[in-house]
């Protein structure tokens, strides 16, 4: 049984109210989108069918929500039970990230009133990556709810139900590891069908799922570090640096594997020269690679790994690296042909920020009211 406790305290802090304002602005633009169509808010066009609502909210948002997935692998596959104290917070962040990714997908869906066609066998196209991602993400949200349910059940004191759930939870944990493996890799497979529109530096065809999965795992572990560090700073919690620095070690391994595959693919396909001759894309590639290398350098050093401050910076750099990798592939270097361009509109960004604000607000409310985090011993 976990020793997590609700943090308690006031909910409506000035920060929380600021988040509410951002959320309200986002909702206004969302209203416009549903009244007057996507084009009334978003800048997506004939050449760029996907803007930040897909690329940030879904592709990056769910990768950032891989904390639960990454920890589940560590705890249940590699049998590292000591990470348990981090699990609930990670699961909550995953649940919020995925749920809002789902909301983002729904908002962006042009014919959202027919979304259930994804679940109707007569409509399904099994060749489609989108079908697999859609179904996987929808199922995974349900699995995450079940996995997080104990926190809620503990709060209301439903002991019987808690016990019953604990008996079958292993099955959901297993599914909860399989599903992200499938759809996080498939988010990379999307790029295969887009062919030449993806810049050669990011179009690795059959390596796409591998790269997507490795970066998603790196981001998942990094978000655990990020979240724990931020929570610790915000709520003055127990020091968990010893756990986090070990996670940093896992990231080193994954990151090394990623960089080997990434550069291996580029070198094998004779694209190495493009790194320096692609103009704007070269700059983005080098910036992205630098962001990947920074955490590698920090985390390889044991001293830096054990310093909570540099550890946090390594995680932040990793999160930006994974996000930029996705932004680069899907948007910044995406080239559907001459004459097309895309940059999100203010309204479009505000909707995304509104969703993030909602995520942050829900996280704050839930950690204050449900047993998620570990309270300081001396409190």
């Amino acid at each position, binding site marked *: 049984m976990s020793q997590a406790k609700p943090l308690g305290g006031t909910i409506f802090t000035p920060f929380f109210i600021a988040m509410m304002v951002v959320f309200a602005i986002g909702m206004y633009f969302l209203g416009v989108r549903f009244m007057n169509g996507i*084009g009334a808010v978003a*800048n997506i*066009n*004939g*050449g*760029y069918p996907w803007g930040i609502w897909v690329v940030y909210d879904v592709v990056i948002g769910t990768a950032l929500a891989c904390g639960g997935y990454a920890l589940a692998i560590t705890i249940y596959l590699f049998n590292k039970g000591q990470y348990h104290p981090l699990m609930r917070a990670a699961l909550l962040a995953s649940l919020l990230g995925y749920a809002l990714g789902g909301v983002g997908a729904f908002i962006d869906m042009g014919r959202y009133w027919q979304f259930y066609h994804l679940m109707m066998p007569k409509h399904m196209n099994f060749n489609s990556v989108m079908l697999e991602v859609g179904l996987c993400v929808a199922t995974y949200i349900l699995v995450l709810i079940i996995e997080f349910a104990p926190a809620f059940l503990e709060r209301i004191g439903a002991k019987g139900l808690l016990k019953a759930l604990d008996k079958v939870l292993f099955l959901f944990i297993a599914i909860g590891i399989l599903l992200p493996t499938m759809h996080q890799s498939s988010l990379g497979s999307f790029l295969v069908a887009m062919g030449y529109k993806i810049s050669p530096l990011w179009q690795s065809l059959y390596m796409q799922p591998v790269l997507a999965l490795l970066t998603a795992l790196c981001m998942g572990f990094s978000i655990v570090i*990020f979240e724990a*560090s*931020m929570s*610790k*700073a*915000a709520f003055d919690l127990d*020091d968990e*640096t010893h756990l986090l620095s070990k996670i940093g070690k896992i990231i080193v391994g994954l990151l090394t594997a990623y960089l080997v595959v990434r550069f291996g693919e580029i070198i094998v396909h004779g694209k190495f020269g493009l790194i320096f001759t692609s103009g704007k894309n070269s700059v983005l590639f080098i910036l992205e690679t630098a962001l990947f290398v920074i955490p590698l350098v920090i985390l390889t050093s044991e001293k830096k790994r054990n*310093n*909570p*401050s540099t550890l*946090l*910076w390594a995680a*932040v750099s990793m999160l930006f690296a994974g996000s930029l990798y996705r932004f680069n592939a899907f948007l910044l270097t995406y080239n559907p042909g*001459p*004459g*097309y*361009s*895309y*940059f*999100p*509109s*203010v309204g*479009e*960004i*505000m909707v995304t*920020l509104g969703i*993030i604000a909602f995520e942050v607000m829900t996280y704050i409310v839930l950690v204050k009211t449900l047993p998620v985090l570990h309270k300081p011993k001396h409190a």
Partner: protein
Amino acid sequence: MKGDFETLEKRLGVSRRDFLKYCTGIAASLGLSTSDAIAMAEAVAKPKKRPVVIWLHGQECTGPTESLLRSEHPTLDRLILEMVSLEYHQTLDSGAGHKVEHMKELSMKENAGKYLLVVEGAIPTKDGGVYCKIAGTTMLDHTIEAAEHAAAIIAFGSCASWGGVQSASPNPTGAQGAQSVLPGKTVVNIPGCPPNPYNFLATVMHFLTFGTLPELDNQNRPKFAYGRLIHENCERRPHFDAGRFAKEFGDEGHKKGYCLYKLGCKGPETHANCPAVEFNDIGGGTWPIGVGHPCFGCAEEGVGFTKPLFSLADVKTHTPPNQFPTIEQREETSGMTAGAAAVGGAAIGAIVGAAAVASKKLGSSESSDSQE
């Protein structure tokens, strides 16, 4: 047949050759074949009995009659007078007063169900129609009475078709076209201000020859004359397609004969055959647009006398201009705006800032931890 034409030559004072040419011309404007032109010629040359015509005048300027009188085919007026028996017409009747009115009543009774009724001018309906009276009776009553036993009814001119200038807002007399005061009757509308006389003549000839009215559109206008927009046959259309416009009267584009659309030409929303038939039989582009004035839309209800003269017309038939997008040109693509860049930058900055604050706090707590 040859004999018929010889007597006709005497009767009408036209040569047989000119007469057949005239009939072929009328048939052509109706879109009929040469054999129909011969049938038409025969119908005129050998009338079974000249059909009686009753011609009423309401609120108007006598434009349609004047226009008809100016049709310049040889001795057209005589042709009409010989072809039909015009038994009542306030402008052309030599008699006047009660005697003429009496003759009209007699004729209508005698030819009940066989005469052709032509209405010219609008019919005021407000206050019982008192704003237009002939021989003590309102135009409204005259029209209803004459329509009762008419074989066919033709509303000649925009006033009779849908009210014309009298019906312009605020329409103080409640002026209406013949059609709207004769519910249940088929009224052939030949709008225009003035209307083209050949559209009238062709309709009458069709009725004389085949005993039926020509094919009508949903506003009861003969399709042969009003089936197309002026825009579709306009001689200045290539300038429209190429985007060459006169922007004000007398400017360079106007002198060069460019399209008058931007001067308010209503050709794109007015149905009439003006560009094909023109006016006054002198050729050389003698019609409003031909002489450099935008079409006023006189023949189209809801356009002429309704829309301001120089306001831009609604284009009913959209076609691409004679310009081409380049390979690189796209519809609505979006660039970066300062606002969006600022909001996006602020969001990223907030995350980095939060991390920096947290990092500082973690660093200090660690040092304080180690001090403890």
